[in-house]
């Protein structure tokens, strides 16, 4: 279980006369339960990534706290991190190591011995359908292959809590479907607590048991997709999201051909 309470964090940018303060997070709070997929939904720059970075002990918040299975992340970061698997925004691999070596390296850093780490790699390769990739160097990997390797790396220590920052970025339809399927299995078969951030409605509608809408650094609404639709009185979830996130009721779209590149 991951509890986030009233998080605030501001950054200062530039120096001298150009110095200015950006309030990245100003009161985000939610509870992500076990055996449940929680979606953190918000427009670009809403503070999703900063929230997840605070949860992963990379940033110390100005105020508020994050608890992972009851452990305060700021006070006991090592203990909290060993109960968490985080796939962050940055998901670089070591190009001169094979996928297996990449994953085992993180397993060893989590304190696993070589045999256990190797066994876990085989297990994860089964779940994520990446057996053929294991002994290739990650240098020439496609986006989807990188993603799978990074996910396996984040899950190598079999964490009870899984945090994913925009995991479907750059994935094609099939890869996205495979990832969704994998997440569902982790929830249903192993009762994991899964939190993932996204700005894509479809993903939330198809996958999430609970949605937390974040805008301008704060939590503006939370509940199931159906509950949020009811709350806003909109039939379409996209419309309810726009209403929740931007405060205004959405302008109905002009009938006619879609602009090129517009998301359907």
């Amino acid at each position: 279980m991951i509890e986030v309470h009233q998080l605030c964090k501001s950054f200062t940018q530039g120096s001298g006369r150009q110095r200015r303060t950006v309030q990245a997070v100003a009161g985000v709070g939610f509870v992500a339960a076990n055996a449940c997929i929680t979606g953190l939904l918000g427009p670009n720059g809403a503070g999703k990534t900063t929230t997840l970075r605070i949860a992963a002990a990379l940033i110390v918040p100005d105020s508020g706290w994050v608890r992972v299975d009851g452990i305060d992340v700021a006070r006991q970061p090592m203990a909290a991190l060993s109960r968490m698997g985080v796939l962050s925004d940055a998901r670089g691999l070591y190009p001169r190591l094979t996928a297996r070596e990449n994953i085992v390296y993180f397993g060893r850093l989590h304190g696993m011995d070589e045999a256990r780490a190797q066994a876990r790699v085989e297990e994860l390769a089964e779940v994520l359908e990446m057996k053929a990739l294991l002994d290739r160097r990650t240098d020439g990997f496609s986006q989807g292959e990188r993603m799978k390797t990074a996910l396996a790396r984040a899950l190598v220590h079999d964490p009870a809590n899984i945090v994913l920052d925009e995991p479907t970025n750059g994935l094609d339809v099939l890869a996205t479907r495979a990832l969704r399927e994998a997440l569902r299995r982790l929830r249903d078969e192993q009762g994991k607590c899964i939190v993932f951030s996204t700005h894509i409605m479809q993903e939330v509608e198809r996958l999430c048991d609970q949605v937390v809408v974040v805008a301008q650094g704060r939590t503006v609404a939370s509940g199931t997709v159906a509950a949020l639709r009811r709350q806003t009185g909109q039939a379409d979830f996209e419309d309810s999201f726009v209403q929740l996130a931007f405060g205004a009721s959405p302008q109905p779209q002009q009938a006619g051909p879609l602009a090129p590149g517009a998301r359907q």
Partner: protein
Amino acid sequence: MNAIWTVFRKELLDALRDRRTLLIVLLSSVAVGPLVLVLISTLIAGIEKRAEAREVVVQGMQYAPTLRNYFQRQNFSVAAAPAEHEQKLRDSKLGDPVLVVPPDFEDLLARGEAPVVVLLSSANNQRSQAGSGPLRRLIRGFNQEQAVLRLAARGVAPAALEAVQLDERDLADPGSRAAQLSTMVPFFVLMAVLYGAMGAALDTTAGERERGSLEPLLMNPASRWSLVLGKWAAVASVGMLIAVLSCLSFLPGQWLLRSETLAAMFRFGMAEALAFIGLLLPLAGALAALLMALAIRCKSFKEAQASATLLVFGVSMLPLVTLFNQEGRAAWHLWVPALAQSTLMGRVLKGEALPWLDLLVPMAMCVLLVLLGVGFVVRTLRSAALK
């Protein structure tokens, strides 16, 4: 402790798999030393040969039997100038200056009318310049002999010509030149260590950030100290490996020495190699820590290379202090890393014994640098991990 070992093993594997970089480093560091040694020895051998040769190159020697007779009495042999010698001198293809004798030399000389001989050399042809000094002295000697003979024929004492007698002696022998050149050896070894450690140091810091693997790495439950110490140990090991290889590479290198003088001057046996390695290992550690500290704030490998240039510049300039110094050996030289090592390596080459205290000071400075560098990297990773 476990985490340090894990990081160390992974970083070392990663560095050793970077074949192309490693190959370039090995070629430039391990092969360059002996190559320079061979080049120096060829140069010195050439100088020695020329000094021993006692040969003058003359065009039209047949017109001047008197002059030829004088050359031969001075133990110089005469060689005829090759065809198109002017062009060859200009193109530096001919190493000796050429003396041109006019056809009416003997006639003019007999009449006391001072024939003109021309000394051909070229300012951009260093070897011909070096050879024209002795040739000029030879002609001056001939003039003097002729003058003395003429005066004696008229009953004047030769001493009336010379108020002062000048006796010239050149004290510079090829051996001392060789000693000067072999001071370059410590410089090459220092540079090899620096460049050897650089690739790995930048890859584990700025490279890690650029790749986007730094953030995932920091989300492991391992302390920053163990991550950084593991990385430092791997980078230092690569630097130390290069240090050992480049020192040992001088051992076979000196078998190729062609100059006996240089071979006598440059005594580099197993004992010297071990002393060099002993001096360089702590320095490799210090340079690894410094490079990592310089690179850790950089967002890309390229940016890190630019800041590492500072260190390269410093390390390459410091040994010059001993070349330009007016004060001789100063105690502070031993307190400056890189300068201390190059000074001490120079002393090893001269066959001096090194007192323990002179070894302890540079060693302590290196340990201090390692602590400062590693500490700085840890601090940076704690606070500004994301930016």
